[in-house]
């Protein structure tokens, strides 16, 4: 077990190092000079600016400074807003996190339920309907679902009934949070339900299910106590990647629903080529998701006794 945790920690650390190096060198590889714009900048100002941002020092010193600042938790200044990136993240991330966590929870619970129903009622209409929903979920990008929901449930429903069920934009009332969360969770929901169905079918074919059945346990007990608990394992492993896709997917969903989260800042910084901001947000998300992956991996190690066994044999 200790070995397993150690190995996971080492990988997470290595991944972070690669990410830091990647963002650093990419930002330095970018064509052009961040201070050369439409305005002509006097030589001395340029020199002062380069000194301020440490761009006059050799590459290796810059890398050292960069790493040092990151370990201090300082992501630097945004070139476009001229504000500390930490500040911007502190202001915007709670919105994105709120949206992300709602979507993730909704996707996990509904996806697992759908998968279980599809597997238990295999070959029936339930199965077909759940899997149809799943394949549509994988095939329709979240921004399209978001825009369609906004149009039909936000605009058309209001025009038809005169009652404002769902606000079109914003993130303040409970009702306004439903459409964006649903739009964002749809593809993850599909992934989870497909995986859960496969895993559940696999589990239902196992010998211990037959044993439980021959012992005379009720169908309900077998499914809840024996099948679901074992079948849920593979779903837990994909929660890390799914968290990643939900958080990156939030970039577009936030834009559609005008939610003041990280997505807005990220898209604006891309459009304005605000390099420090892009690398800062990238790094922040990288760290966040590597941590999420690590937690999922460790959780898996604790939940599944087989992981301990395999590691012990090595």
């Amino acid at each position, binding site marked *: 077990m200790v070995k397993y945790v150690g190995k996971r920690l080492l*990988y*997470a650390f*290595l*991944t972070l190092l*690669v*990410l830091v190096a*990647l*963002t650093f060198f*990419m930002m330095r*590889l*970018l*064509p052009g000079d961040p201070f050369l714009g439409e305005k002509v900048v006097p030589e001395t100002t340029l020199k002062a600016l380069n000194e301020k941002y440490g761009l006059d020092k050799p590459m290796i010193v810059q890398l050292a400074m960069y790493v040092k600042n990151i370990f201090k938790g300082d992501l630097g200044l945004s070139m476009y807003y001229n504000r500390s990136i930490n500040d911007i993240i502190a202001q915007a991330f709670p919105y994105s996190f709120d949206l992300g966590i709602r979507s993730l929870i909704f996707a996990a619970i509904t996806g697992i339920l759908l998968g279980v129903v599809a597997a238990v009622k295999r070959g029936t209409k339930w199965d077909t309907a759940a899997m149809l929903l799943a*394949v*549509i979920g*994988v*095939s*329709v*990008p979240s*921004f*399209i679902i978001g*825009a*369609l929901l906004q*149009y039909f449930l936000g*605009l058309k429903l209001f025009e038809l009934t005169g009652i404002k069920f769902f606000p*079109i934009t914003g993130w303040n009332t409970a009702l306004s949070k439903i459409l964006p969360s649903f739009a964002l969770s749809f593809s993850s929901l599909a992934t989870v339900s497909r995986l859960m169905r496969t895993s559940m079918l696999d589990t239902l074919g196992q010998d211990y299910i037959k044993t439980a059945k021959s012992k005379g346990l009720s169908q309900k007990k077998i499914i809840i106590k024996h099948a679901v608990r074992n079948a849920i394992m593979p779903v837990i492993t994909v929660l890390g*990647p799914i968290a*990643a*896709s939900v*958080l*990156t*997917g939030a*970039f*577009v969903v936030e*834009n*559609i629903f005008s939610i003041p989260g990280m997505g807005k800042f*990220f*898209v604006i910084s*891309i*459009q304005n*080529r605000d*390099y420090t901001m*892009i*690398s800062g947000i*990238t790094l922040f*998300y*990288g760290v966040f*998701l*590597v941590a999420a*992956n690590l937690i999922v991996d460790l959780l898996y190690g604790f939940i599944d006794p087989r992981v301990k066994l395999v590691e012990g044999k090595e």
Partner: protein
Amino acid sequence: MDRIEKGRFEWVGANVSESEGITRPSTSYWRDAMKRLFKNKIAVFCLFAIVLISILAVIIPIVSPYTISEQHLTHTNISMGFKDPVDGHIHLFGTDTLGRDIFTRVWSGARTSLFISFTAVFINVIIGIIYGGISGYIGGMLDNIMMRIIEIINGIPYLIIVILLMMVLPAGVMTMVIAYAAVGWTGMARLVRGQIMALKQQDYVVAAKVMGADTKRIIFKHLIPNTLSIIIVNITLAIPSAIFTEAFLSFIGLGVPLPHASWGTLANDGVKVFQIYPSQLIIPALYISITMLSFNLLGDGLRDAFDPKLRR
């Protein structure tokens, strides 16, 4: 009951060749898989839809009377099925805010989007087979190192790497291909490695080795053909993900530069006006969704067709 005399029985003889005969016509693995695929109506329909969209994406921008950036300032933002009474211009899907013909743009966008995803997935497959093949066949320490590298790359969300790459490289269609191909190969490499590792242990490979077959023969005669079905299924499932990535990047403003149009940039343009002119978003959205759906369903069909356990 009386005893029945032995003499009343007659030996009719045994037809050895008939009892040992094979009633089922012999088919190869591939022919059998194709037969099963073509029995699957949904998969065949999807295959047909994909072929049709690909062909039309090549033809329509050529035969269309309009170019993708040609503006008709007298009729902007018109609805579907419009025919101008003055100059006789027909715009099947209407025009956008700048008066550009959406029908032409959406098919031209199909060309761009499909080109990007096909090329990117093709590169992924090549890299994946080589990387996974080497890793799986040689094994040992090298395999360990190669897999750890993949693990680290996978630790970072791929969209973040793609976005970073898109920022650094000059904007263009090939940039999109390179950015996606740079991270998309890891899944394929893992898959090929796993398959090669399993096949390597098979008795027929050992037998071939014992009979003196060289590495080249084993790889090309035994390992690659047996990996091919998994690769094909994976290709069909990787293409929709590439289409999605392209649309996503275009949507956040990192898409193909003008004058190119892609489904993602069209959807992005459509979102801006879509509360007034919903068709400008719904049309590219339908194209994206139908294409992705077709590839996903075809992939599912292929997986079932190639699975020998499902053979009847």
